[in-house]
């Protein structure tokens, strides 16, 4: 079979679905996944299935474990308990080299883009191509320019260092880098955080365009409801463990975006409509305790 230019085509042929059953298999499957850092429980019994081609938005308040869940999906964080399957393969069972090969199938847009400071924009976008393909310098250059055009940036930014770019441009360069290898799974970590409303909408449009142009499954972690409503087919809301009873599930909503406004769970509605609610009472109580010389521990 001739190489189609995609790096995993010659490195992990077995991983690429060849039959209809494999095509119907979910791309990502989390089975009762739990993550603990020291004594802090971040995720508890998360069970989630992401079919191919779906755009899933994971919403929830800051610190509830959204980013940890996403990093667990690609093996950047190891689950303390439970199983994570990518394309039917247990990530925990893979060796470092096998995991590296699988990661070529992921694209990750980090919250602050995580561009390499020491490299130019061009070198940043070319990095995955140079690392994983045997393409010549002109071929790499051609792909870099094409990806840059995909995210609406001119060629003259190629020679700039990330420090010279605005937040929105950095995000777009990060997206171009993540798309360089045409991944099967795109992960967006807070793609619109810290951007003005216009640039946020540009990023939302880019996420939608990416999905149209590439056969990609996407996971978007966000606390921006506008982004969740605009880009997602399905929304999952994760709630902080510290606010849950031991018997309660951590995923408190799982459904299409247009159903979330009519959800019966007040915790979901509180988040969707951005109401402080009982948090304001908690803050008042804590400041009252402090003012009266009480200890919090």
């Amino acid at each position, binding site marked *: 079979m001739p190489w189609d230019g995609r790096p995993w085509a010659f490195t992990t042929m077995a991983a690429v679905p060849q039959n209809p059953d494999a095509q119907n298999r979910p791309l990502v499957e989390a089975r009762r996944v739990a993550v603990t850092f020291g004594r802090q429980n971040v995720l508890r019994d998360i069970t989630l299935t992401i079919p191919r081609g779906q755009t899933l938005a994971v919403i929830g308040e800051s610190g509830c474990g959204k980013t940890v869940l996403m*990093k667990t999906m690609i093996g950047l964080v190891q689950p303390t308990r439970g199983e994570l399957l990518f394309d039917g393969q247990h990530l925990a069972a893979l060796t470092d080299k096998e995991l590296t090969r699988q*990661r*070529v199938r992921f694209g*990750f847009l980090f*919250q602050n883009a*995580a*561009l*390499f400071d020491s490299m130019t924009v061009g070198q940043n976008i070319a990095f995955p191509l140079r690392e994983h393909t045997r393409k010549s310098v002109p071929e790499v250059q051609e792909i870099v320019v094409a990806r840059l055009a995909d995210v609406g940036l001119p060629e003259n930014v190629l020679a700039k260092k990330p420090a010279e770019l605005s937040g929105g441009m950095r995000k777009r360069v990060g997206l171009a880098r993540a798309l360089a290898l045409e991944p099967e799974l795109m992960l967006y970590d807070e793609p619109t955080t810290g951007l003005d409303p216009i640039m946020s909408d540009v990023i939302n449009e880019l996420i939608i365009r990416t999905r149209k142009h590439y056969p990609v499954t996407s996971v978007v972690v966000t606390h921006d409801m506008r982004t969740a409503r605009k880009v997602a087919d399905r929304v999952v809301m994760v709630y902080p463990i510290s606010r849950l009873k031991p018997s309660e599930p951590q995923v408190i909503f799982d459904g299409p975006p247009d159903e979330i406004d009519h959800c019966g769970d007040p915790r979901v509605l509180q988040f969707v409509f951005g109401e402080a609610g009982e948090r304001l009472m908690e803050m008042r109580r804590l400041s009252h*305790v402090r003012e009266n010389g009480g200890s919090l*521990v």
Partner: protein
Amino acid sequence: MAADTTPAIERSFNPLRIIADDVASIGGVTMAGIEALGEFVLFTLSTFSWLFTRLPRRDTLIPNFYQIGVLSLPVVALTGTFIGMVLAVQSYAQFRGFGLETRLGAVINMTLVRELGPVLAATMLAGRVGGAMAAELGTMRVTEQIDALSSMGANPIHYLAVPRFLGCLMLIPTLTIMAIFMGVVGAFGYSAAILHIDSHHYWENSRKVVGNFDLFCGVFKSLFFGASIALISCYRGFHCEAGAEGVGRAATTAFVHSFVTIIVLDLFLGIGLDNVYYYFWPETQPLF
């Protein structure tokens, strides 16, 4: 409202509990130390395994070699020169009292070749390069650049730690030789020009005492120093805590740990190499 002002948990005085807490915290610190040591050993093994499986690309090696070797050369040469001159200043008064000024070269050169040259070059490297490596890698950790490398299927140890390790390991012998050379030149320059010590006897006495094995000892020790600096600094950078304070702490601990390791290694390597020397050459040339 009165109930709200009550502290959440009030601890009553209980001596047994205090002792138990102390024992628990000692246990916690011990466990954390053992865990850190284990992680460091795994980090070192991973670095070595990449050395034998796949070497880094040239374009990642050369900038690191330039940073570690070329940019360290002036500072190592300068400190070497002044250390040599200081040794001459400090030793002269003592040797003059016994009328042994011409033996100054033997003592200074022996000290520089076997001990001060390698330790000085390593200390300068730990301060100039080790701290910078820990801070750079720490910043990369904090800004998720190391996660970005992993997410793109590039192994961070192979891409970031191995070039720095190779740079330190391969270039520290050169820096050590430069430190020794400049120290020897500085000491001789001061002794001959300022102290008016006879050059012929100065060099003749040095030649009798300082041999090739001594130079080998200096260079051999420097390899261990270079490897320690790179491994400790990269490890500290990779395990940097969040925020500016975390990066600062990583840089400081990288230098402190590297320096302590250099001194401890120097002692044990010195003892080991002396034993090797006496095993092969039991008849040694006396200093006086």
